[in-house]
């Protein structure tokens, strides 16, 4: 049970918010948007592995080919 994955996702979300806020306040707003997109990409990559083995295990259990 990867409970820490949940907390990692929340942490990265909060971190991206802080980073983009800092970047926005320091004047470079396009970098802030970039940081937001990067943070979201990291979060999605984390969840992708979890979803992958969810779908493969459901497929093997129900013989859905």
């Amino acid at each position, binding site marked *: 049970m990867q409970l820490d994955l949940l907390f990692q996702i*929340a942490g990265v*979300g909060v971190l991206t918010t802080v980073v983009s806020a800092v970047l926005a306040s320091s004047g470079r707003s396009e970098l802030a948007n970039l940081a937001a997109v990067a943070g979201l990409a990291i979060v*999605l990559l984390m*969840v992708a592995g979890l979803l992958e083995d969810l779908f493969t295990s459901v497929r093997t259990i129900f*013989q859905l080919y």
Partner: protein
Amino acid sequence: MCAAVLSLLLRKLRPEASVVLTIAAGAMAVLMVLPQLQQIVSALTALIQTGGVQERYMTQLLKIGGISLLMDFAAQTCRDASEAGLALKVEFAGRVMLIALAFPVMQALLSQIISLSP
């Protein structure tokens, strides 16, 4: 439970991360149940073997169960991301697949009933 709290926190700060968080929590919940589900399915197939029902219909039933599980998972995820229209379309696609799968079983049933009647 903690996923709900965390996603509430994230909803204010970073809305898209909270959606991903709920998806991860849902996937984890289903993953936790899967080993028991595996045992249930294997016990069911063993039971069916002795029962003499054709193997084909058993795999059809399993497929229907799997498809409805995945359809519901996807539709609820879309609803979490406040995409109600998308959820309806996903459910519609899932239902079409279910009907397509259930059709041969119904045909076999009907033909048997007809053959039974004098």
